[in-house]
């Protein structure tokens, strides 16, 4: 059978173009990481909390989500640039010069300018957002590239792009952020109903790996009812249809091994449980976990938890 597998692997290589070595998985937190930016319309928050879109003149709050695993805490400087989205791809970060605005800080408040917007491929106007997060350094403009750059010895940085849908004359209801309301831990072999809540105050204690191979436990992420909204989109035949959102969930950790980084709502069971297997590390100690949920229209939520392996 090994020979057969080798032959088929060779055949697959012939068909799909070969094979490469193992690369670091995305779920693994080893360095300074960004996970996203949550957008909340604060003009409407009293009447309609969690709206991710804004009309000209409305204000939104943006909160950057990141993890810096550095052993020594260090400041994270963030610079935000807002602009009207360009309609020509290939321009720097999709930004045009109109409506340019710069803000600083991990969380900022931005007011959508009252300008005329062009529309994006889905016929929606957008504000393009570019954020540079610099851990252990300061943000400066690189004179050679005219792009922001993180300066400082040992500093780490990432640039993030994000977009804000601008409501002009749409009649469709606005999009809202999904809301992660539950993180559960399920010991290997136990039913879903016996999931232990991974709270944000008292760390859950979980068993370390003592077998070879390690036993796989699971994390479960749940979202509040209404997180999966109905949206207008196109089916594969090009017909405009109203369908429930399929949320994308991210699982990240600095210790142990996740089965996979992402889970996406199944088209068959869109409200099914979102589970991801995890192998605990062999060494005891705290484990940092980040869970994200996002839709395709700017909705985003993130929670960070810690479990203690013992």
């Amino acid at each position, binding site marked *: 059978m090994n020979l057969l597998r080798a032959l*088929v692997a060779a055949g697959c290589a012939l*068909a799909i173009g070969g094979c490469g070595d193992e690369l670091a998985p995305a779920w693994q937190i080893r360095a300074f990481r960004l996970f996203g930016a949550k957008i909340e319309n604060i003009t409407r928050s009293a009447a309609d909390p969690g709206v991710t879109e804004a009309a000209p003149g409305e204000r939104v709050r943006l909160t950057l989500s990141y993890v810096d695993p550095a052993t020594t805490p260090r400041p994270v400087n963030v610079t935000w640039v807002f602009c009207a989205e360009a309609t020509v791809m290939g321009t720097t970060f999709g930004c045009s010069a109109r409506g340019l605005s710069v803000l600083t800080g991990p969380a900022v408040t931005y007011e959508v300018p009252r300008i005329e917007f062009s529309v994006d491929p889905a016929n929606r106007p957008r504000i393009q957002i570019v954020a540079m997060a610099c851990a252990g350094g300061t943000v400066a403009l690189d004179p050679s590239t005219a792009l922001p750059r993180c300066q400082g010895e040992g500093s780490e940085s990432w640039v993030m792009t994000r977009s804000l849908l601008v409501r002009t004359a749409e009649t469709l209801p606005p999009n809202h952020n999904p809301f992660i309301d539950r993180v559960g831990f399920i010991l290997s072999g136990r039913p879903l109903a016996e999931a232990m809540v991974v709270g944000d105050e008292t760390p859950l204690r979980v068993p370390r790996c003592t077998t070879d191979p390690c036993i796989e436990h699971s994390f479960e992420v749940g979202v509040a009812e209404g997180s999966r909204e109905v949206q207008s989109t196109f089916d594969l035949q090009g017909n405009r249809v109203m369908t429930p959102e399929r949320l994308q969930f991210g699982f990240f950790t600095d210790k142990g091994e996740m089965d996979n980084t992402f889970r*996406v709502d199944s088209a068959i069971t869109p409200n099914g449980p979102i589970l991801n297997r995890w192998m605990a590390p062999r060494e005891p100690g705290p484990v940092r976990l980040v869970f994200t949920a996002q839709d395709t229209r700017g909705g985003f939520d993130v929670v960070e938890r810690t479990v203690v392996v013992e």
Partner: protein
Amino acid sequence: MHLLVVVLNRRIRARVLAVTLTAGAPAAAQIGATTRADPTPAAPAASSAPRLTQFVQADYPPAALAQGLEGSVLLELTIDPTGHVTQVTVAQPLGNGFDEAATAAARTFVFEPARRDGVAVASILRYRYRFSAAAAREAQRPRPRALLRATVRGRADQPVANAAVTLTLPDGSTRDATTDAAGAFRFELEVVGDMRLAIRAEGFDALEVTEPVADREDVGLTYRLTPARPAAPAATPGSPVSEATPAEDEDEATVRARRPPREVTRQSLEFREILRMPGTGGDALRAVQNFPGVARAINGLLIVRGSTPQDTQIFADGTSIPLVYHFGGLSSVVSTELLDRIDFYPGNFSARYGRAQGGIVDVGLRSPRRQGFRFVANINLIDASLFAEGAITRNLSFAVSFRRSYIDAILGGVLSGINAVSFTSLPVYWDYQALLEYRPTSRDRIRLAFLGSDDSLSLILNQPSEVAPRFSGSFSTGIGFHAGQLLWDHTFSTSVSSRAMFSINRNAINVGGGDVFGLNLNFWNITGRYELTAQVNRRVRANLGMDLTGGPAEIRFNGVRMPTEGQQPNLQNLARVSTQDADTLYRPGAYAELEVTPTPRLRLIPSLRVDYTRDANRSWAVQPRFSFRWELARDWFIKGGVGVFNQPPQPSQSSSAVNSFNPSTTVGNPFLGTQRSIHYGLGMEHNFSRYVSLSAEGFYKDLDEQIIAQPSVLGAAYLNSGIGRIYGGEILLRHRPSSRFFGWLAYTISRSERRDSPASTYRIFQFDQTHILTLIGSYRLGRGWEVGLRFRFVTGNPTTPIIGAVYNGDTGTYTQIPGASYSARNAPFHQLDVRIDKTWTFRRGSLNLFLEVLNVYNNANPEGVQYNYNYTQSTTVTGIPIFPNLGFRYEY
């Protein structure tokens, strides 16, 4: 016709009839045996005697044959109502083993039973089995393995009678013949190989040539003799000239009767080369990839002289094939057994071909055999195929072929334990071809052909990708076509002939990728083609033709704008496109081509082709072309050409369908024009011998009006904004198949560049490969063994380095920041493939077993670079490791 006697079987009381009728001997009377029966009075008209429908040849007793004994055995056969012989009695013995032999053979006879009032009844038949020693010896004589026949002509193309022809066989023995009044002679050959012919006729110089004759080959030739002159040198094998072109200059001795190409460069493969070429698995179209000018591609793409794969058209006798290879190169969609020839034109091709600015591959389907029956089975690790051909009547013959893969069966077991992927439909491909050929007269050949192919695959990615998590769920591909083709070759006279072709293709392409990408494309491709060829006079030959392609198309698409060459598909960033549309394509064309031979050493071919493309802004493309071939000295040629080649946009690029994502835009650009390329070529050829030749050619291609996908999501989707330049040289040192060896050394050096817009600078073409070296050789060791190798050294493909990435907060993934387009390259590719064949030849067939090992020394050839999720790590993706393929081919 022989008289048969049926007498009453008194032991069978019921349903027994005594009749006497005349009946025919077996349709193909067997050598060495005849049937005869004694006459009796006629039977009532409502009844019939048994009639022999299946005759079986009796084994002639060896001792009797050695002594020359012969005679007849009278048998009494009892035939049941089903027509089978239930009892054989020797009524008149002959002895010496004849009685036993006749009895054994007669037991297996099959009759149409006797009938009484229309009801089958049992009967007894007296049957005389005659043994003829002379006929038996004739039957045991070895059958000719090949036929060499030719016509000898002299002044004004008149036949030369009474010419003395001496044939020297490979073993040194000789045979003689004399041409008849029509100048014809023929040799039936029991051995094959190199045949040396010497032709002597009064008033002409002697001619000596060597002709390679392959197994089961019917070689038909025309030789033209040079009138004798006191100082005239002896004629030697020279360049090929047209069979229909008379020898017009008596200063020249033209020898071999085969038309030269109408193109500057044509590479043709012979059947043995196709079957035995290492690294191709005996697949004809994959063999094309070893010619000079063809870049190496791992996915079966044909990249000819720096042109994109879409720029090269593949035809099967004039019908465009939408799919060349199954699953990106595993095997081609047309059975090798059905191929008559593969002609490959890397550039400067005839005006007969249009709508392509790169190259042409023209696959000729051969005529089914008009005598006997042939069956071939091919089985290897990937697929199996069956082929059969034969004669139905004297004028009607057929050929059928079917192939199916079984990688689904293999993958099903292997992939069952992999969590990441679930196959809902394992990869399967199949194809079929069926030909029916009718020759109502000697001037007509009518052929009906059906071709079809299907590739399908459906799977579910259980784990979302780290690079594009939304691109998950179910994936499926289905690509297939069914084509019907009617071909009619008609000869009006010795100087005028025509070919008419009409075909209808039904093509379907269905691709689904999660909830991100979907394509359903169904279209009919109706092609008509007519070419008239006329020998206007001794120096001018004209080819006039017209063709039409088009048909209704229906498309449903949801995805991103399809990128053009050099652009990376990016599901996250490109313009979203969604549409449903139906359209009808209409693309007629016409051409005229002259073949002018002002002297027998010089051929000039001016031509003009005009194409109209309704879906490309109703554009007209006028394409003048010119090529020449000049024999500077015996076996030394100079060749060259220049021409304009237009190619219309793909239907999706010129589509006027509204983009549902943005109703103010269209999916394509209906105002696109056709792309244009001007080919320049100049080269030489030299024939060192009948087998060994050398050709070298330099080429330059000037591209403009190239179609480029635009970055704007609101403006035109595509523009004719690109230009390009391609230049290089090719050398081919070739040894055509002899009785022992074939092979070639091909080397190409080239550079292909593109400029996507006037504001940009030139960049390297996506598949640019500076050096391509291919060495192929195959040698017959004897006793059915043949060993071959293929070695390739190719410059690594260009790559675009990734210099960084930004985090896309909208998708949760990272977007790469590319460096300068194709500013880096993979390391060079080099690989050795070996093939070993062993053939066993039986009385009625042969069995070929082959072992092919790809990448013998297991070189880790880089095929690309794979990055981690945030593009901070990378690893080299390597190609196929050492890979054995085992298979066999049985021919009956």
